């Protein structure tokens, strides 16, 4: 208790720095997925896998500092939830990238997937901005709203895409399954980013 009282908030600052690093890894992974979609260059897939592994290490580091005594016990579960959501999103980016290696996308489908991937990346960038505001104690409303608008845009795109999916010929069941899963993962990334933003908003409210 006295260590915490007289400490220079070192643990808290370390947690926040590492959480930002975690988010930056997610942004890099999202950008790599965009590039992989554009170029089909396998090095981007390898980079995504490497980023995901690094993300796991960062996540473990954050949690160990968090439960050593950073922040009030009151907000630790919410911070933990935030970190877990970012980790889940990273996993999803990796899963989507792995599937992309095996599925073949027609040009219109590739264009739609590319657009969704770009929007995902912009969502993550907005999430980082929201996180910086959260740390400074600034108002989050507009940033959270922007993230929600992105998510809605992606949902609309997917809805339109989904209606055309059944007309797309596939070679076999696994190709079809892979294609469906890839698109589903791509859209789910935006759902998780939105959930992450919501957690941030809730922590901000609870401390107000």
């Amino acid at each position, binding site marked *: 208790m006295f260590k915490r009282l007289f400490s220079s908030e070192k643990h808290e600052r370390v947690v926040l720095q590492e959480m930002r690093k975690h988010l930056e890894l997610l942004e890099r992974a999202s950008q790599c997925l965009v590039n992989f979609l554009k170029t089909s260059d396998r090095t981007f897939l390898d980079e995504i896998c490497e980023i995901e592994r690094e993300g796991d290490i960062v996540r473990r580091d954050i949690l160990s500092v968090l439960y050593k005594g950073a922040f*009030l*016990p*009151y907000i630790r579960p919410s911070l933990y939830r935030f970190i877990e959501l970012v980790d889940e999103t990273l996993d999803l980016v990796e899963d989507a990238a792995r599937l992309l290696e095996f599925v073949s996308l027609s040009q219109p489908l590739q264009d739609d997937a590319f657009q969704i991937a770009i929007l995902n990346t912009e969502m993550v960038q907005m999430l980082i901005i929201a996180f910086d505001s959260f*740390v400074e104690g600034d108002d989050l409303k507009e940033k959270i709203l922007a993230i929600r608008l992105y998510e809605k845009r992606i949902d609309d795109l997917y809805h339109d895409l989904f209606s055309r999916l059944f007309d797309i010929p596939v070679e076999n069941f696994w190709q079809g399954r892979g294609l469906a899963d890839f698109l589903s993962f791509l859209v789910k990334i935006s759902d998780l980013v939105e959930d992450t933003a919501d957690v941030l908003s809730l922590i901000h409210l609870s401390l107000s």
Partner: protein
Amino acid sequence: MAKEWLLSSGLLMGWSLGANDSANIFGTGVASGLIRYRTAIFITAIFVMLGAVIEGDKCLSSLKSLSTLSYLEAFVALLASALTMIFLTFLALPASTSQAIVGALMGIAMYHGSPDFSALSKIVTCWVLTPIGGVLCSVILYKPLRLLLVDRVKSLVARNRLFFIGILATGSYGAYSLGANNVANVTGVYVVSGLLSPKLAVALGGLSIALGVLTYSRKTMMTVGKSIVPLDPFSALLAVLSEATVLHVFTQIGVPVSSSQAIVGGVIGVGIIRDFRTVNFRIFSKIIAGWVITPIVSGILAWGFFVVYSIF
């Protein structure tokens, strides 16, 4: 040595007070996850002792006005109160030691056929004013505290640190006020009966309360705060500060009052400011039942002891 065994009921009373009433200090903080249980009891024990020793003698005179007591009557009054408190702690109801001890003293006075209800009026008035004071304190302190803590301090790290220090500070003040106001309930009757000097009475009383805090307070600590209104860090801090202020004010008046009533008033006050609908009145009524049962049970126990004693 012959008379020292009579202190045992007072020490038991102090222990049960510590076990039950410490929940009123850090119950909101521990249940809301602001502070760990071990930290809370450590701080409470230290500051309860300090409050008892520094200002504990201020409330001793109120009990003198209720009754004169022999050594045995002092022992029985405290034993009846302690047993009542232990029973209510077991049920996880925050009970009032002030009401327990007053109930026991009135039970003894009724056995003698000489209950003086006029002396009760000042004490009972303070009991009624205690939860009202808690509500008012919360309402009055809400805006200034919010301006000071929430609106001025924006950054997450700074706010986190401020809430942590705030909870420690208000909890320490609350524990100090608890010791100052309630130690009279523990060993005040021994001063009335002449068994102890005021200085020794507050020191022993404070020590027994501290022991109760350290050994048996976990169960009741979770009832207060979590059960009534779900509290965020600022609200928890405000409720405890209100309670501490009310206790300290009544210490200056010289009347031991219920810390349970004060914290419930503080928490209800917070609930009213935020949203009236969030107040869990079912638990509130359970707590009020404890307040009613306490003096009655304690009075019956004390009266019953002397009835049995007179038979044998």
